[in-house]
């Protein structure tokens, strides 16, 4: 493998009621999007503890893509709005510590938006490719 070769690892947390269905729709309509994303289906974006995202980043992900329902569409009434606050807290923490908070995104994707899902994943992958490997991977103190 070439030394400079960088293929981003992206973890996606997708709400099963919207974004995961959109990912399915993107697949069934044969849309092309980068295979870098490893989708994890969760019951609601409000289920995601920010610590899971932090852990993904520390364990080698270069970016984390979180997708939930559009405001007002949440299957559990307001899980996505709670998620929004949690993501904001996580992103602010990362920003405070100079840890590139743009590696975490939160997007609203509704069930029918397969093409939008493909587009957003593509955009995000390109962004992470531009940013390079995540500094959070360096969780070791180099002595």
């Amino acid at each position, binding site marked *: 493998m070439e030394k400079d070769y960088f293929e981003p690892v992206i973890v996606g947390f997708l709400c099963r009621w919207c974004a995961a269905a959109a990912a399915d729709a993107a697949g069934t309509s044969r849309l092309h999007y980068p295979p870098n994303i490893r989708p994890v289906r969760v019951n609601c974006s409000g289920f995601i*503890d*920010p*610590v899971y995202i*932090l*852990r993904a980043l*520390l364990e080698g992900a270069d970016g984390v893509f979180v997708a939930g329902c559009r*405001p*007002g569409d949440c299957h559990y009434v*307001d899980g996505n*709005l*709670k998620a*929004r*606050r*949690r*993501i*904001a*807290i*996580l*992103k*602010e*923490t990362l*920003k*405070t*510590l*100079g*840890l590139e908070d743009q590696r975490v*995104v*939160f*997007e*609203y994707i509704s069930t029918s938006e397969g093409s939008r899902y493909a587009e957003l994943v593509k955009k995000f992958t390109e962004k992470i490719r531009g940013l390079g490997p995540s*500094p*959070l991977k*360096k*969780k*070791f*103190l*180099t*002595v």
Partner: protein
Amino acid sequence: MRGALLETGEETRRTINNFLSRLLQEKMVDAILAPIETSTGLVTPGFVTNPEKTHIIDVLAPVIPGVAMATVVSQITHEKPVEKRLGVILKPCDIRALVELVKFQQVNLENIYLIGVDCYGTYPVIKYKEILEKGNLPVENVFEALNKGGETEFRDSCKVCLNPVPIYSDLCIGYIGIEKGKLFIEARTEKGEEFLRKLGFKLLELKERNRAVAEILRERETKREKYFGEAEKELNGMEGINSFFEDCIACHNCMEVCPICFCKECFFDSDRYSYVNQNYLEWNPLEGTVPMLQAKVQFHVGRAVHMASSCVHCGLCEQACPQDIALYKLFGLIARNIQRIFNYTPGRSVEEKPPVQEFKEEELKEFIG
């Protein structure tokens, strides 16, 4: 609000204790939960029910006894409210922690009367003992620092504390902005005023106190900005964080003493958090060295994400650290920035909901996408 001015002379501690004795004698409270003196001269939270035994109470002791008083109140009330009327003596940061715990349903304030105490600053335990060994009274040092404006030996979180006066309490024992040899017991609620009236005090209003407090706050705002500015520089990027936690032994003491970390079972004590042991040798082969206890960054930053929105800036995390890591730098900085986005001050009022418990339909646009 109005309050009573007490003449203390040199006997500040005895005057306060006499006042507490009277609360017990007149059956206004059945017990008082207060910092009581131990044989080493330090203080620890304890109950006093006998009005003749109040002499062991040391309300103004400028030291935080290991655990926060708010944690103690949570321990005795989180299952059901106390049956007897309990007067609790708290420092301003304790009160703010208590208010936060009320919001998280960890404290029930029924039958509890809050007696706040002004706190210009507290010493680290070691420093406090040193002062005692020299034969001085730490609280006299605080009075002196208050008059002269010097406060160099307080804990870091106290040096930049913006709440020297309790925000939310029934009664408040105040010495900031009061002339020497006097104390001001302020009634903040109707209940508090009733207490003072029953004890036969003449109630009056003191305006100059607010001015003195504003003066202190102005001074501390600049110090705070400077302190956090330096912290921001130090804790920048993974290298800064890694070297900051280099000496951490992952004892989780900071979590144990944190008044806001109330969970009975912590995520970071669970299996989900631990690494598989074999992984250690597989990691980082290029560098050739793998320091152990790798989950430190995840623990500290993860804990910050969990509690920082309600952090009351008490600095107990720093005091509890056996390795002397200046933890308040990290937690205080993250907390300040997070609380700024939500325009939230922990402990301001019981009605206000903490950021993680509520949301607005339209907000936080800059964090989306």
